[in-house]
């Protein structure tokens, strides 16, 4: 899809001294340096307003860095054709992002359609994706308002995967779900990711979710990157800010121990 040769792609996404300021001068993100490796799931963890969604939106250039550079597949987002860039990156947000006037099938087919795929190929792809994310084919003709929260979220994931993008951005995609449905979708997403091996950047404030889904976790606090650690090391980190975050979630006796994933 993109013309970037794959041998230079040792890093999928790179933040180099990136800051993001609002027009008012308020700094949402300060001097961020972060690398996302191909095929890993990097979790951006942090409380509300910490700057994790801002970080995510800098990758697909919904926001432009005030200073520094964001590189996707080795090329600065400023040098990308922004439409090309975004179609190279799957984007899944909370359920509100589905188009309410499109059926499930049309929602999933948005990117293939704007990429002018032939109708038959699009149709097959939609079927394939619905199966992949566990949606009954009968739901294809329904509208988002006629679905449950979990079904809507599956549509969101299918839509982000439609054109088989190498990179996937997910902004609290399971945030609005009840705990049981959320756990179910997390499990399915893990299984999916094991097969797909996409580069995923996943925003959440939920430590449990981070531990379940991530390869590495980047903790962001008030616009600063506190640390980036592999999942297994995260809960044992001596960093006081990490420990604070872990403690806040540590309501049960088993969280601090090494978990076996479901």
């Amino acid at each position: 899809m993109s013309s970037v040769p794959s041998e230079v792609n040792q890093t999928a996404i790179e933040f180099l001294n990136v800051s993001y300021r609002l027009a008012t001068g308020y700094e949402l993100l300060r001097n961020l340096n972060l690398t996302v490796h191909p095929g890993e799931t990097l979790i951006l963890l942090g409380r509300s307003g910490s700057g994790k969604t801002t970080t995510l939106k800098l990758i697909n250039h919904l926001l432009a860095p005030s200073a520094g550079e964001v590189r996707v597949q080795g090329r600065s987002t400023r040098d990308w054709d922004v439409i090309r860039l975004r179609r190279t990156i799957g984007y899944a947000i909370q359920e509100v992002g589905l188009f309410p006037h499109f059926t499930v099938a049309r929602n999933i087919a948005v990117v293939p359609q704007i990429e002018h795929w032939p109708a038959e190929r699009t149709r097959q792809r939609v079927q394939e994706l619905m199966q992949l994310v566990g949606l009954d084919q009968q739901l294809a003709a329904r509208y988002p308002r006629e679905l449950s929260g979990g079904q809507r979220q599956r549509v969101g994931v299918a839509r982000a995967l439609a054109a088989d993008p190498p990179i996937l951005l997910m902004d609290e995609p399971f945030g609005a779900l009840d705990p049981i449905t959320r756990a179910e979708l997390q499990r399915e997403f893990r299984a999916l990711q094991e097969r797909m091996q996409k580069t995923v950047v996943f925003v959440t404030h939920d430590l449990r979710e981070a531990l379940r889904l991530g390869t590495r976790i980047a903790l962001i606090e008030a616009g600063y990157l506190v640390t980036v650690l592999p999942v297994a090391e995260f809960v044992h980190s001596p960093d006081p800010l990490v420990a604070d975050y872990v403690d806040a979630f540590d309501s049960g006796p088993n969280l601090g121990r090494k978990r076996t994933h479901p």
Partner: protein
Amino acid sequence: MNVWQFMLENHTEVIELTLEHLWLVGVSTILAVLIGIPLGILIARWPALNKPVLGSANIIQTIPSLALFGFLLPAPWIGARADRLAILALLLYALLPLIRNTYTGIRGVDPAVVEAGRGMGMTTRQLLWQVQLPLALGVIIAGVRVAVVISVGLATIAAAIGAGGLGEYIFRGLAMVNDSVILAGAIPAAMLALLADVTLGWLEKRLSPR
């Protein structure tokens, strides 16, 4: 002679004037839609244009209709024929609800939906045609509905400058001090307004995304 007898006896003329009336309203509305909706889209895209455009449309709205007909009279080509003049005046009055509703409709689309579209790589044009306009359609049709209902009423005044329409009966009845003749113009005009309101209301409901 009561109004029904009058209308029955003059039914050819009633139909003729009704068609004339419809012509004035129809042509002016179509032109107003062709101008007003793009203007609404424009100011939704460039908010700096918002004030001058909506302000102008607002000022036009405050000019009394008879005065507007008078102002337009010296205009070349337009002033040469009464129906052109009437159509232009009706068009100008219809602009405000069309511009404002198009603007409000587009602005009212859930920002999360718009951002999802942008994030997936839709161009500005694709976003407008596939997301913003379809989702704003109900509000835009509501604007057309208001514009048409206003036009049907205003078009009766066009008879004062000889543009025809059901206003002919109203002015003639006023001159003759004959209620039946006034009503022969007023009743069909009211029915047209109601019909337009109901039809467009139905359309509005059908096209509004829930």
